[in-house]
């Protein structure tokens, strides 16, 4: 199990071992699940109320399917921990936050100063993702 290096939640970290998406649907007591690239995040939607942790695995950060998986879960109302694991890089941390990730467990620990800069670099964003609570530039231009 890889350590969580960055976490943006106040609740207790979930330490239950995450099971696969396939195993999860058959294990009614599991609370943690791990999505691999290519697995359909929507398969978890019927069970969101009993999930406390979803790990999204990035065998390579350049495989972008995990970013869609994260947004789909958040758009469906998932409020538990959403943890990126695997080949995470400094330069994607901000974008991962925007897709709904709130915990980060990289294979190799990242430089904390660089990571802090990356998380804080962008004061503004062009898109609304509807899930990260950030106002898009267009919303700032046209306050309701």
């Amino acid at each position, binding site marked *: 199990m890889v350590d969580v290096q960055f976490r943006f939640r106040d609740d207790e970290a979930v330490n239950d071992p995450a099971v696969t998406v396939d195993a999860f649907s058959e294990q009614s007591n599991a609370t943690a699940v791990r999505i691999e690239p290519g697995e359909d995040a929507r398969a978890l939607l019927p069970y969101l109320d009993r999930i406390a942790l979803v790990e999204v695995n990035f065998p390579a950060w350049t495989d972008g399917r995990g*970013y869609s998986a994260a947004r789909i879960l958040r758009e469906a109302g998932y409020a538990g921990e959403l943890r990126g694991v695997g080949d995470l890089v400094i330069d994607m941390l901000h974008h991962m936050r925007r897709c709904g990730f709130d915990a980060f467990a990289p294979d190799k620990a990242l430089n904390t100063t*660089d990571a802090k800069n990356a998380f804080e670099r962008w004061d503004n964003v062009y898109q609304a993702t509807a899930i990260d609570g950030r106002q898009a530039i267009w919303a700032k231009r046209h306050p309701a």
Partner: protein
Amino acid sequence: MYKYDEYDQQMVDVRVEEFRDQVRRRVSGELTEDQFKPLRLQNGLYLQLHAYMLRVAVPYGTLSGAQMHLLGDIADKYDRGYGHFTTRQNIQYNWIKLEETPDILAELAKVEMHAIQTSGNCIRNISSDQFAGAAADEIIDPRPYAELLRQWSSFHPEFLVLPRKFKICVIASETDRAAMRLHDIGIKMVRNDAGEIGAQFYAGGGMGRTPMIAPLIREFVPLDQLITFSEACLRVYNRYGRRDNKYKARIKILVHELGRDEYVRQVEEEFAHLLTQPIEPPLAELERIKAHFVDPAFETGLSNDLDLTDPDFRLWVERNTTAHKVPGYVIATISLKPVGGIPGDASADQIRLMAKLGTEYSFDELRVTHAQNIVLPHVKKADLYTVWQALDEAGLATANLDTVGDIIACPGLDYCSLANARSIPVAQKISERFGSAQKQAEIGELKLKISGCINACGHHHAGHIGILGVDKKGLENYQLLFGGSEGADTSLAKIIGPGFTEDGVVDAIEKATQVYLANKQGEERFLDTYRRIGMDPFKEAIYG
């Protein structure tokens, strides 16, 4: 044209600092080249055969005089005194030092320019009709929609590492001047029966190894759903586009393998879901952008007369100008294809001269075309002779638009690490063989396109005549294709037979033009004659 507000400016400024930090981490060794590569690519920085190459975005091909001027200065200061305009309406510099790139980007940011997402597996620079806002045949200026999409696609957190690169094109005329259906997503702005403007979506077109013409996927997307629908198209692609083989990773393969109908079904399902999410900018934002694209202060009541007594000027006017929507004005295309030259290249001095002419005679606007030429979109006819004289003096008045001399060519093996064969010397030889203005005028419109490998950056599939450079047992060999087109009548060119040497391919093209001239009926172009009589007469002349 569009002007940045404080937010846009801050976005490019922050991006410069982010990239500076990435270069610092690379130079210090904190990042390996393998780790750095996808990051630098997201910012248009390639490592080519001899040096780094930096591709600078020209959103939908529109530039101000000050922007164009700076592009010339950058060519002098950081490159070898020239720049290369590309088929995606961008400019690239071939002799760049890694350590200097953050400074180049900082200079670009001062004139509201950047290199964001000009390469990498992300949404690239949005391309458009080079005559937008000036063409007599457009229903509306397509650029505000392209700008809306530019902002949406810049640093989109979900779509930065797609299966492969993703190119979007927006047009708004029946005449397609931007090869719209050869894009990953092609958008045509249309008016529906109720008189409302909306977007017609095509998806899954492209060139490369497997050329495909994009099928229509939706007749009409209302303007207040444009971003949401785009997001649905991208999400289905990001989730299901192939990632096991980079040559099968473009959206065209997904659309082809799923079938158009199944792709549409999935997009519509995702679209219905995304409509429940508050992600669409308000129409007020589109209106704000549109206000930047209002017509310049055209004079009214101008004469349409033009003194054509100078025969060289006359030839250039006939070949290189296009009707403007306002009487007394004309659209002038500056050919970057001088006889024997490198297609798309311009010297720093030439770039600055074009900038000056754009500022003084075209309401401070210039355009880059996908055929690697530059457009002065709004020239008063009364000024045209003065403009032409200045161009002529700078070697920029070649009268060959859309003729056999107006060749599209990729950089080829002279620069590119992917190429199998050189493109530039072939283009130069063809341009010299057909150098005489009389010969070019006789042959008329003939779009010739050269790629140095099957990735098709030179658009050979869409050429009336296409040339594909291949490697044949260590020797450069050139295949010849006929019958492609990128217009409203988009078609893909077909290989005519065995390949040729560099000189052989030039001879074969000359024979083909002879067959055309011998068989031409009425006003037929080369392409029309070819479509009517078929490939056989050409093959017979070339191989017989």
